[in-house]
């Protein structure tokens, strides 16, 4: 299970998010689809459930979504913004 790292705070601006890693003093921006993915991750959904949800909301293929979700999760884990429980 994934969750937001404890040193990460996030704020919504419209349908987008800004993330703050306050240990590093660094900010990150997420576009609308990235923000939606983040919301689903912090709600406790696993990658499979996120893909199932997003396929109903966006006009794209399952393969593209699966790739994009995996890539974003990977990047957010590398940056220390997400962690495994």
């Amino acid at each position: 299970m994934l969750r937001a790292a404890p040193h990460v705070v996030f704020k919504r601006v419209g349908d987008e998010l800004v993330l703050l890693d306050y240990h590093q003093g660094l900010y990150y921006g997420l576009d609308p689809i990235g923000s939606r993915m983040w919301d689903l991750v912090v709600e406790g959904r696993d990658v499979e459930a996120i893909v199932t949800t997003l396929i109903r909301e966006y006009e794209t293929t399952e393969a593209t979504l699966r790739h994009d979700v995996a890539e974003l999760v990977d990047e957010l884990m590398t940056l220390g913004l997400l962690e495994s429980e």
Partner: protein
Amino acid sequence: MPAPFDGPADCDVAVGEVPPPHDAITIDSDDETGIRVSRDAVRRDRVTFVYADGTRFLVEDRGRRITTSWTSTPEDMATYLLGPILAFVLRSRGTLALHASAVAIEDRAIVITAAGTGGKSTTAAALVRRGASMLTDDVAAIEWRDDAAFVRAGYPRLRVWSDSARALYGSEDALPLITPSWSKRYIDTREHFVATTTRIATIAILAGRARQTSIREILGHEAAMALLARSSVPHLLGPHERVAELEEITRLVSHVRVLEVIAKDDLEDTATLAARLLEASAIR
């Protein structure tokens, strides 16, 4: 300060000995500028600033009391005091301050921010020459009233580099130096100054220069990230202050128009840039 105040002073500045910090935690140390900022490890409300030219400040109790000493000139000391020191005081009191200038057109403000020497004061000066009133230079403190964002008035000076002085006034000697030891000059804007906290219409971010001026509205995380990069003294903030800053900036971009400005690479054309900014801000 010419601004009328109706309450007691909340910042007492005294000239006196600033002892070297001991048992201090370094907050910032910049070899390039030679500035060292440290917090007393025991009395954590005491923060000491030591500049390369020997100017020192001890800021206590979130700026209720500031003690300063210097070995250069009082003008150098005052430049630090009115810039980074008061910005630090504002921020340690939880007030968002942008590294920005601001002017007013009637009862609405345009806040102009830029990266480094991006020309915010020069643009503000051009707007003042087109009839705008001067509000603040360098430090723009943001205040909320009934869910609307306002910018506080600062003091009636704009500081510009020599090339801007030449572009605006034909000769750098048209403007006096701020201090004998620095090539930056100032424009006395007392005649055009309004000491009134003013509602913000637009925040213009000078993001770069190109062959032609272009202005576009930016929204959402792009606007928030651009302003987060242009807050005052962010490197001196602790984790809690960072969280508060994120809250304030996201609120700000939800309430005011944010414009990204790429200015024509020609200081002589600052008057045109000022006119375009007025037009884009929907203020005549």
